[in-house]
């Protein structure tokens, strides 16, 4: 999780990924950042995020993103 947050910080600098729970709904991340995160997941973790998973609840916090990542990994 810590390593994952560090990678998120490289994508969008200056965002409080540890504590923020409204990353997407609160406007801290936009659709372009989401695409970057999906690229990172594909590149660094070999996880393919299908378009059906691109919903605000999956990108509102680092925890939610990590949970989605684990779920997709299990599938």
């Amino acid at each position, binding site marked *: 999780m810590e390593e994952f947050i560090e990678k998120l910080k490289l994508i969008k600098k200056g965002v409080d990924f540890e504590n923020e729970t409204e990353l997407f709904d609160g406007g801290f991340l936009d659709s*372009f950042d989401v*695409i970057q995160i999906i*690229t990172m997941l*594909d590149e660094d973790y070999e996880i393919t995020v*299908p*378009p*059906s998973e*691109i919903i605000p609840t999956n990108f509102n916090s680092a925890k939610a993103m990590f949970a989605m990542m684990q779920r997709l990994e299990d599938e």
Partner: protein
Amino acid sequence: MTLTSVSFFAFVFATLVVYYSIPKKFRWIVLLAASTAFYAIVCLKYMPFIVFTAITTWLGALWLDKVTNARKEELKLHKTEWDSDTKKAYKHKTLMNKRWILTFVLVLNFGILAFIKYFDFLAEWISGLLHTPVLSLGILLPLGISFYTFQSMGYIIDVYWGKTTPEKNFAKFALFVSFFPQIIQGPIAIYDDLAKQLYEGHDLQYENVKNGFILILWGLFKKMVIADRLIVILNAILDNRPGLYNYYGAIAILVYAAQLYMDFSGGIDISRGVAQMLGINMAENFKRPFFSRTVAGFWRRWHISLCHWLRTYLFYPIAVSKSFLHLGKWIGKHAKKTEEDLPADSLWGGFTFMEHAGRVIPGCIATLIIFLIIGMWHGANWRYAGYGLWNGIIIFISMLLEPAFRYLLKKLKINTQSFGWIVWQILRTFLITMVGFAFDIGNNMSDSARMVLDCFHPFGMASTVPVQLSIGLKTSDYVIIGIGLLIVFAVSLYQECSQKSARETLIKQPLWLQWVIMIGCLLCIVILGMYGPGVAANEFVYMNF
């Protein structure tokens, strides 16, 4: 039977009476019967098209569901027996099957839409290139074909993604495709948001009927009092267009923007109001778009349901596709990596330009594709492609240069939250979107470009007006337009500043005041609305989409 006709409201009244008279579990059947009757009355000749879309989408979704369930059963059955490679191969095979089914339904339905909408345009274009006689299909667009096709295709994609359980009952699904208040011009609904509301019977509630009634009045006011007067001015200018641009071009663009917004949002208000009287909440399609501070923001507030559809079902699938992910990686690989850790407030937001470009260009290209589609969705003419690309290119450039703009603002110590800066952003966005609207009303690309460029003609302001333009409106009409637009502006400003619905505020007032305002609005429509003998009934602009 248009949304503003007496016959439509008689139809709505009859539907309401029957809907609330029968047991709750049968009420969806009333909606289906009303929707079928409405379509038959307005567009019987082209009814086979909507029936075809409903059948193919319904069957396609059930087929997808069958494949998904068989896959689950099979994987469960061989859970211990199959190794991970066998499971992976089986999953891939079934995924490909599902993909073929989806593609088949999408191609079939979008193919019909594209064929009807673009055949004549492409045939004319090709015959112009080859100097051969023009081959014309010469058929009108079936009522609401763009809206119900997009809505149905959204449903089947949701089933493919596993977001939605397919509807087993064809009659219920047919209701989702054809629900009469939204068939004329949307909004394009998401299945999970609308279907359940359609199928469950609603109790008759005074609040729903009153709220719906207020929304209908507001929609009628915008359409019949303002939009149908503005269209007279617009037509007068556009009918005399040779040599008539300069400031008339600017006036035409402004009048068109106001007319389109009053017409489209007015129609949507009427549709949503009728649905609300039936206890059904339809999604908002406009959120005061002319208060947007960026072009991207404008498209989050204008025709919201279409933009949401395109973002969900097209933008993300394109932007996260393998080829686009590879493009981002490829640009990133060619970026010169930063040796030191750049701060977040540096010129390119903590990255080098190439790193930043690698991050945003795949999304920017997907944006351009989406806006090209938005443009062509509006009509079969290259100028509509220009309309889409104009907006797409502006967003492309603003996304690419966004960190540099932010850096510049900080260096110039501009307070981006100040009133003056916000007003400047709103005005700037307004002017950019106005240029886009010129593509909508020009005869072709060069005519649209001329209309815009002539607005800046340094010598043409008065001397080149060739004729005294006879618009055919009285002075009182201009006063009504002015006051009407001021009322809409004041209500929008209130909503924008308070972030409250004007309707919510109205229904909190004493009952006598609510009814005074509602009856006043009704009288205003009856007395000032454009209708009756000698006035051509103006169809809604988006009715022919």
